[in-house]
């Protein structure tokens, strides 16, 4: 019931073409993440789906029905805004009940649904507080509560976690994933954080300047990025890109190798590099190396790896894990 199809959707503001033309299929119950750098049109695309912005061309189908001209309220979508957009003069109860009141439900039904939502989101103790008396994470949950009571066909999230601190972000990430498993509803989630994208998504849509660069499951994008942009965007630390002689030997304009696919030793390896900075995270060690005639390289070693700055090491890329790209930046198979 919650399938969403974008058919050749475009959006321009005046002369500025923000989204040239996008085709996208989202299956019912899928958790889709839109990622991309700032200003690439993620929010705009989400607002087009929500109906808060009119499309300049193309069609939007929700549950097989053409909803391109339908006003937001009748698309049966719920949105969680980046600023939460809670109603400041209403209590938490009033906020969560608002969409139900607007739908004209009886007050005992409203009462029950609000209580259910509050229980799912651990808000029962805060129902009588005003939004300004809540912490960031609690406000976030109220915004989600307001979305789930409406029983929408799909949820839209616009960077819902970007105002939270790192620890809370990890916790809320998990909560939203659990909510998805519980409700089994379509969710579209916008973020510029590729870790959020990798951990939460069934399907990632990588956007760049309003264009879809690649669509696929997190591991698909990780294993087979279609082009340099996706290869550089997905994965942390970033993939190493090498051009010049090293790439030409493999018949490519650029080659890419992920930091975790490099083996370091004192004895053998393709390249020889000098250790610059070593970052010790405990679980991992990131080594920033410089290779003569090739360039800088980051290597990720599991666990604690003893390496002194200035030390010379041999570097061996794992066989079959080297990505090759042509001079237009497209992947070579």
């Amino acid at each position, binding site marked *: 019931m919650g399938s969403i199809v974008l058919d050749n959707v475009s959006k321009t503001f005046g002369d500025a073409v923000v989204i040239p033309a996008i085709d996208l299929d989202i299956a019912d119950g899928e958790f889709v993440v839109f990622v991309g750098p700032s200003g690439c049109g993620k929010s705009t695309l989400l607002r087009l789906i*929500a109906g*808060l912005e009119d499309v300049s061309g193309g069609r939007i189908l929700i549950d097989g029905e053409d909803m391109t001209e339908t*006003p*937001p*309220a009748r698309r049966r*979508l*719920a*949105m969680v*805004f*980046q*600023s939460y*957009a*809670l*109603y400041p*003069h*209403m209590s938490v109860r009033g906020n969560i009940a*608002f*969409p139900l009141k*607007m*739908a004209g439900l009886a007050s005992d039904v409203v009462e029950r649904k609000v209580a259910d939502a509050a229980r799912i989101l651990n808000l029962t103790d805060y129902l009588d507080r005003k939004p300004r008396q809540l912490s960031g994470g609690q406000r976030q949950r109220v915004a989600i509560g*307001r979305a789930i009571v*409406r029983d929408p066909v799909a949820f839209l999230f616009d960077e819902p976690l970007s105002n939270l601190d790192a620890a809370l972000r990890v916790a809320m990430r998990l909560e939203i994933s659990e909510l998805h498993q519980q409700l089994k509803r379509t969710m579209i989630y916008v973020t510029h954080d590729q870790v959020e994208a990798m951990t939460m998504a069934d399907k990632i849509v990588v956007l760049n300047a309003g264009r879809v660069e690649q669509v696929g499951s997190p591991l698909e994008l990780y294993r087979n990025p279609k082009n340099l942009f996706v290869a550089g965007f997905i994965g942390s630390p970033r993939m190493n890109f090498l051009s010049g002689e090293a790439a030409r030997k493999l018949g490519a304009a650029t080659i890419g190798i992920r930091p975790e696919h490099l083996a370091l030793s004192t004895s053998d390896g393709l390249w020889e590099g000098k250790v610059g900075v070593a970052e010790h995270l405990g679980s991992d060690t990131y080594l920033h190396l410089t290779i003569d005639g090739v360039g800088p390289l980051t290597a990720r070693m599991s666990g604690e790896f003893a390496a002194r700055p200035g030390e010379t090491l041999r570097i061996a890329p794992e066989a079959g894990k080297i990505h090759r790209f042509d001079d237009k930046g497209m992947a070579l198979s």
Partner: protein
Amino acid sequence: MATLHTRASARLMMAPAVILLLAWMIVPLGMTLYFSLLRYNLLMPGMESFTGLGNYVYFLTDPAFGTALANTLLLVGGVLAITVIGGTGLALLLDQPFFGRGIVRLLVIAPFFVMPTVSALVWKTMLMHPVNGLFAWIARSLGFAPVDWFADLPLLSIILIVAWQWLPFATLILLTALQSLDEEQKEAAEMDGAGAVSRFVYIVLPHLARAMTVVVLIETIFLLSVFAEILVTTNGGPGVQTTTITYLVYMQALLQFDVGGASAGGIVAVVLANIVAIFLIRLIGKNLDR
């Protein structure tokens, strides 16, 4: 950063201003209180004598007093109602994007810059005049008998004139409040299924509550002392139909030269203004502490 030291020096530095303001207020108030206890008429100089509360009894039992009190409250209430409701409507209109919005905004604000006497004269002679006025002309060309505003509806006429002057103020304050409403809140309400009316009632109005409180409080202070408009148009008449407390005090002092009676009236007006202020603060002031 209010340490003991900074607070002490802050007090010291504020002292001159506070003392000056206090003297500015206390001296006239004290003199008015003193005069209000005297039998003091300018037509009989040198005959001042102490009468106790006689002036107050005289003022409060004056048959015009009850009417004046009612007129004052009607004037303040009427103007407040028109400006707050009309101001909200105008602010909503001016918040919409339309062609020539800048010029229309300027026109709406213009009445605020016109002196009360001038605007009252313009209304009296150009708009409401039963023979030459614009309203009369409109009524006649539509086939109705023209209304003689100041003879038949004197208080309403004055309410309209004063409301016209204060409408821009209310509009301006409410417009800025409206523009500070978070766009995402309106969008969220829209997605929650609230139509235009529900969005206004549940989102916009509560957001405007504080600004409305400010408008009501400030306007009340000024409206309690409306004077020029009455003097220029009706002179408090016909009879006492447009006599307010302020105007009654003026009549005592400058038409009957009764300084004692006028002072007593002034004190009564101060007390009344304070009662109104207490009521207002009780009623709507809680919107402000947040």
